[in-house]
């Protein structure tokens, strides 16, 4: 019984991590049809922002939940203005340019922080559950993932900004005919996606040893979660994160973490082969 509960939490945790790390990418891809291959480095940047500001004396929650998203959002604005906006509508070119950005950021962070691993302690202590030890911070991550998913859904579905964003996604020309500048909508969307990436990076920072190449650990998972999810931002990410999280965690518990990750990637390939437009291209069509 206890064991089942622990396994359940572990699986929920795996799903939550996927939701968190892919939310920013899902917003940017779903709204703008832009694939940001530097997403992993955006997360890493968020992690560094959290760690550095915490070491400078900022409260850890403030560092993770406010400083990290802000820093990455500002950086995202710069990236959108300098690189992305020139390449709208050219999907492959955006992928290539952001891949270049990913390498450049990785190199820049190596020059700034050195090729070493840094980290901070988790702010929440573990507790015992029956005969097992559970990490309190994992529950916090699950909570954050729920907050992000619900918040994103409400923002897109109920607010005026969300309505405009969805409108621009469906028909950019019509939106601009109504007097909303698509360029501004895209800028804000990209900044919002970057902020989510920064938040995820900040929240993940205490869990992983952070080094300039950490982004590579996230990017593949975030990437396939979003692509396999399809065009709908929230329901797509939730559906594929649920599927992949359960699979990878099950294989991880049965064998080793490496096998878990490989299983996740293999399932992703099979899924994309069967549903080339992603899960929401086939099921839950037209949802947010």
């Amino acid at each position: 019984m206890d064991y089942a509960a622990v396994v359940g939490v572990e699986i929920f945790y795996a799903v939550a991590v996927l939701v968190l790390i892919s939310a920013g990418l899902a917003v940017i891809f779903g709204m703008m049809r832009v694939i940001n291959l530097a997403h992993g480095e955006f997360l890493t940047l968020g992690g560094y922002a959290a760690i550095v500001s915490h070491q400078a004396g900022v409260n850890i929650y403030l560092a993770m939940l406010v400083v990290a998203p802000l820093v990455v959002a500002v950086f995202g604005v710069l990236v959108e203005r300098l690189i992305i906006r020139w390449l709208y509508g050219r999907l492959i070119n955006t992928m290539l340019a952001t891949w270049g950005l990913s390498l450049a950021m990785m190199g820049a962070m190596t020059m700034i922080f050195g090729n070493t691993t840094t980290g901070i302690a988790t702010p929440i202590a573990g507790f015992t559950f029956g005969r097992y030890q559970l990490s309190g911070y994992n529950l916090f991550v699950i909570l954050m993932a729920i907050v992000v998913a619900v918040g994103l859904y409400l923002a897109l579905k109920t607010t005026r900004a969300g309505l405009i964003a969805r409108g621009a996604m469906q028909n950019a020309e019509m939106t601009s005919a109504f007097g909303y500048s698509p360029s501004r909508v895209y800028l804000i969307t990209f900044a919002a996606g970057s902020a989510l990436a920064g938040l995820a990076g900040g929240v993940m920072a205490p869990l992983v040893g952070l080094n300039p190449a950490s982004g590579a650990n996230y990017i593949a998972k975030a990437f396939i979660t979003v692509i396999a999810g399809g065009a709908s931002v929230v329901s797509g990410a939730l559906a594929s994160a649920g599927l992949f999280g359960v699979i990878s965690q099950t294989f991880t518990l049965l064998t080793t973490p490496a096998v878990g990750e490989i299983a996740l990637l293999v399932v992703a390939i099979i899924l994309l082969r069967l549903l080339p437009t992603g899960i929401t291209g086939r099921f839950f069509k037209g949802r947010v």
Partner: protein
Amino acid sequence: MFARDVLPALIIGVPAMFVLPMLFDAYTLTVLTAYALLALSLGFIWGFAGILCFGQAAFFGLGAYSFAIAALNMGSAWGPFFIAILVPAVFAAVFGALLFYGRLSDVYLAVVTLVMTLILFKFMNSSAGEIYKLGDARLGGYNGIPGFETLTIPWDPGEYLYDESLFYFAFGLLVLVYILLRVLLKMPFGRALVGIRENEQRAELMGYDIRLMKTIAFSIGAAIAGLAGCLFANWAEIVTPALFSLGQSAEIIIWVIVGGAGTLLGPVVGAAILGYTKFLLGQQSLIDNTFVLGVILILAVLLLPQGIFPSLVRLWHWLLARLPSAAPLRRRSGRSRRDKDV
């Protein structure tokens, strides 16, 4: 065909083979040649068949690993040489059939090829220990496989190919592959491939089986990448999972995009120049190598989306057209694929 395609390659290639070792270190030249061959493989499938593979490093690594594993098991190196070409080709044929018969394209193709590379990378990285053994070869996880037999002169098993002789061998192969690809592109198959690149639907309506043709092209590209991997393994005398890494895949794409997709010579030149730049940058520690590569890729995409080589060619034509005496040049008609989506 001979005068236009084979002869120029020989006229430039053969003297270059003998001049280059006088100017540069043969050891460096050998690895640059392997890189050039690798760039050529992606340049072929991307520039001429329109397949943007984000995981060409997978075939490179697969070639190198197949060579190392086969060499350890067979004790000689010439059998493994062919195995290193065959294994990636067969793998790509099966994998490509899975993709192209499912009509995956653009982003999805890019994602799936990227993911496949990651799977191989993760697997090879976690393959330390006794259970991961193929015959006599232990996969060795993160440390890779050292200590396999390398290529020898075929009629003299005691005489290893290394340094200059390995370079001559590699460069000869590069020229040979280049010529074969030029000839292939002039044949009906190559012509149809370019047709598919330009307009997939039209080619299909004209009766070409684009799924089969793409699969074959993908497999040819993988065979060349495998050959490059085999040469790399002979040069480095060790194979490690880093061959499969994302960084390696990115580098191949950078070579091709900087050199110019849509040409065969562009990627070769791009790989040689950028490979050498990387080598030079590796000798200092002020600026990070990855940073420079990334910036080059961003700038290339933003400023020279057609690549340096085609841009130079266009500049040349533009200058010619400006000269009053020059006869009006026939502009290449039609939009190329690169205008469309790259």
